[in-house]
């Protein structure tokens, strides 16, 4: 068991013939993900790697392949359209990897996707992986190992760091999810925490947050009220100066809200373990399982 994706996930890749799309499609196929189709307008009829059919529209791809999941690697100015196309074509789980999507575009996309009954992960996220079964996105497969720790994070390489430390310590993962660092995204911490709580194979959760916004505080409240499984948290940006944007559009402290100290307080108040360093996850999780 796992959350959001497993060995039965059937995936189409939007932007499959692009530079990033083709590179990561090969990686996903090598990992064992069932990539059943791709979409690049104008390249319909071609085969990717002599194997995967390419379609002009998502609608055609879904009709022909029955795919239930889509991953998006198109350039930022086209990402909003690609997400809406996937939702309109009946895809139920949409993973948008694209970085740099204009935020106002997402204010239109988010309610549209919701009304179509689909789930969006991202944009500006590394995707997710259920070790040994399926990966959708760009998380390096070889740092993961199957197990029962759920991982959820706002950042990419920091997720890799923690997963790498867990794997080195012999602690496998049920599913690792990167929700992305943009101010408006499709899936938040609470969505993932609720899914992990319901997943019988997940025994404990590692959660990596960042400065900016109140998502971590909201997650802490949810954990306190609804979770029976142990959660260990970390906040990146404890040394960040206020008012500066730290790469992620989301990682900005405005005024007194969104600071690392405030979030760590919320974690403690929710009875969570608090990792001071990425390596601390190993001992804190082990002590709670």
């Amino acid at each position, binding site marked *: 068991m796992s959350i959001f994706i497993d060995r039965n996930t059937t995936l189409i890749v939007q932007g499959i013939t692009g530079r990033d799309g083709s590179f990561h499609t090969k990686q996903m196929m090598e990992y064992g993900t069932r990539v059943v189709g791709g979409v690049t307008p104008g390249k319909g009829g071609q085969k990717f790697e002599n194997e995967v059919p390419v379609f002009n529209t998502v609608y055609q791809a879904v009709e022909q392949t029955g795919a239930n999941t889509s991953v998006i690697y198109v350039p930022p100015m086209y990402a909003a359209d690609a997400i809406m196309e996937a939702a309109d074509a009946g895809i139920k789980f949409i993973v948008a990897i694209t970085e740099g999507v204009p935020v106002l575009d997402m*204010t239109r996309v988010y309610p549209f996707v919701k009304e179509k009954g689909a789930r969006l992960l991202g944009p500006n996220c590394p995707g997710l992986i259920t070790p040994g079964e399926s990966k959708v996105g760009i998380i390096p497969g070889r740092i993961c190992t199957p197990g029962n720790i759920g991982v959820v994070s706002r950042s990419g*390489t920091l997720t890799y760091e923690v997963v790498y430390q867990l794997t080195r310590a012999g602690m496998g993962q049920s599913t690792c999810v990167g929700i992305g660092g943009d101010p408006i995204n499709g899936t938040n911490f609470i969505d993932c925490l609720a899914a992990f709580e319901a997943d019988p194979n997940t025994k404990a959760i590692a959660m990596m947050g960042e400065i900016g916004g109140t998502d971590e505080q909201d997650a802490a409240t949810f954990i306190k009220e609804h979770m029976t499984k142990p959660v260990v948290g970390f906040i990146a940006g404890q040394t960040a100066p206020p008012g500066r944007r730290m*790469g992620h559009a989301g990682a900005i402290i405005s005024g007194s809200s969104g600071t690392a100290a405030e979030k760590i307080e919320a974690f403690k108040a929710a009875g969570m373990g608090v990792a001071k360093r990425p390596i601390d996850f190993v001992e804190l999780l082990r002590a709670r399982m």
Partner: protein
Amino acid sequence: MNIHEYQAKELLRAEGVPIPPGEVATTPEQVEAIAKKIGGMVVVKAQVHTGGRGKAGGVKLAKTPAEAKEIASKILGMKINGLTVYTVLVTAAADIASEAYVGIILDRATKKPVFMVSPAGGIDIEEVAAKTPEKILKLPIDTRYGLQPYQASELGFFLFDDVKKVRAAAKIMGQLYQAFMKNDASLAEINPLVVTPAGEVLALDAKISVDDNALDRHADLAALRDETAEAHSEVEARNANLTFIKLEGNVGCVVNGAGLAMATMDLVKYYGGEPANFLDIGGSSNPEKVVNALRIITEDPSVKVILFNIFGGITRTDDVANGIVTATKANPLKIPIVIRLTGTNEEIAMKILQENGFSASSDMDEAVEKAVALAKGGKAA
């Protein structure tokens, strides 16, 4: 990206927002000429990207063109929160009967632009929000439909009782919303929105921040960027496609990914050191980026050690290793370097580094501890 008050006012004027006339100047003589043209009382306002301009003495009233010139000679060149004033806005002074606040911010919680209006304008709106939240009306807008007339009128009635003023304010709400949407803003505010004794509703100050992600489709806005308002190293970094923020410490950090970069800075602090910067080389694996990163970091004389922390995913660690070798061959390092690499093509990267006389670790804690020790002038642990 923040733009200056005078630039924000131009964008609002284009939508029809009533704003007193004004022009920008860079010399006291220009200020005098503009004041003469406007006639009557003028306000001379420093154009810098920081709040608290008034408190710092960067906003002053002048009764005559001669006084405006005199004031400008003091404001031009002054420093406000570390930023030098190169430009001032000279604008007609308005008589004020009351001041309100009107703003739109992109809200993460509702995933919508949210109007915030308050009849208690002119001062820090965050303070109003904290102390007297009942004086603020928040209204989220569904961008698929835009601001509806009934919503604009609801906002207007929260500010005024007099129907004429309500209508004037509602019109301004619509114009502000247009400016926000058209320019892909993440913040647009008018503070204060004043009523004159004659009953006119006017925008006296304006602030707009543009979403950096959207600059690719707004060449006109991208051109408004004022590089004199930023640290030289940060401008250089952006031109090299790096995200760089200068800090006070002495451990120069080069990391891939914003989250890991922040976690690395935190770990430097954890082991008793102080990071000299935030630097994210991003996801692509171009050796040129590493060369630029090293150049920018070593330009800072306070940096005592360079710390690389690279977790290869999309980024290939061998590309980073090649970048380090290329950069240090062209400009030999005068300070120690500590390298942590793991992930994609790690074995090749380690070999490249060893062949060129560098050592590298695959453990983050080990590398950070070592860098902190070196920065303190001690031997590596």
